[in-house]
């Protein structure tokens, strides 16, 4: 009887762990999606009209100031 209850406890714990894994995976990874969007936007737009000076780090000049009007 002891062995059976041990098995039941083990199985319950494992089921809980599995449920936790599934739960994590249901949430939309917003930060990862933003990074993916930025990678695509960098590639597609190339932001060639920003006139970035050659020495400056590309992709910096369009953030921060001047975003709103």
């Amino acid at each position, binding site marked *: 009887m002891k062995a059976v209850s041990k098995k039941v406890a083990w199985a319950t714990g494992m089921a809980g762990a599995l449920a936790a*894994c599934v739960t*994590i995976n249901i949430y939309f990874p917003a930060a990862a*999606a933003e*990074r993916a969007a*930025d990678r695509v936007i960098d590639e597609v737009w190339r932001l060639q009209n920003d006139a970035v000076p050659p020495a400056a780090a590309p992709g910096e000049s369009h953030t921060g100031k*001047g975003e*709103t009007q």
Partner: protein
Amino acid sequence: MKPMQLPRLVVAWLLTLATGLVFAQANLDIDTPAIRALTDAMKARHTELLPFYESGAVGQAANGNLALRDAAQVALPQRGRVNGLVAAENADRAALYREIARANDHPEWEADVRATFAKRFLERAPKGWWVESASGWVRK
């Protein structure tokens, strides 16, 4: 199979699953042939769309699409061409959002992917482009 082998197998399987999940959280996979084909097409189209972004004829809509917001900015002979470009870009963007969700084994994320892209298109649009914010169209 011995009685003790099964729990170990289950633990190994769970660890593998958990490792996969950690990576899934770290980055979304955008490196599939379908996604690459779409971004290549969008890249090629961008050169043609750029003058219309700058003139304000075409803007970044709040729903993750492009919108022809001011047709009067486009010379009459070019209007058909602009409409075609906007329609083609919106079709590719829709396919891109769908493919990214699918490539990451969550087709139900499509709307979230679209919302994320919409937000970043608006935020990252360079000065002078038109974007549709919550309060309407604004020129950055």
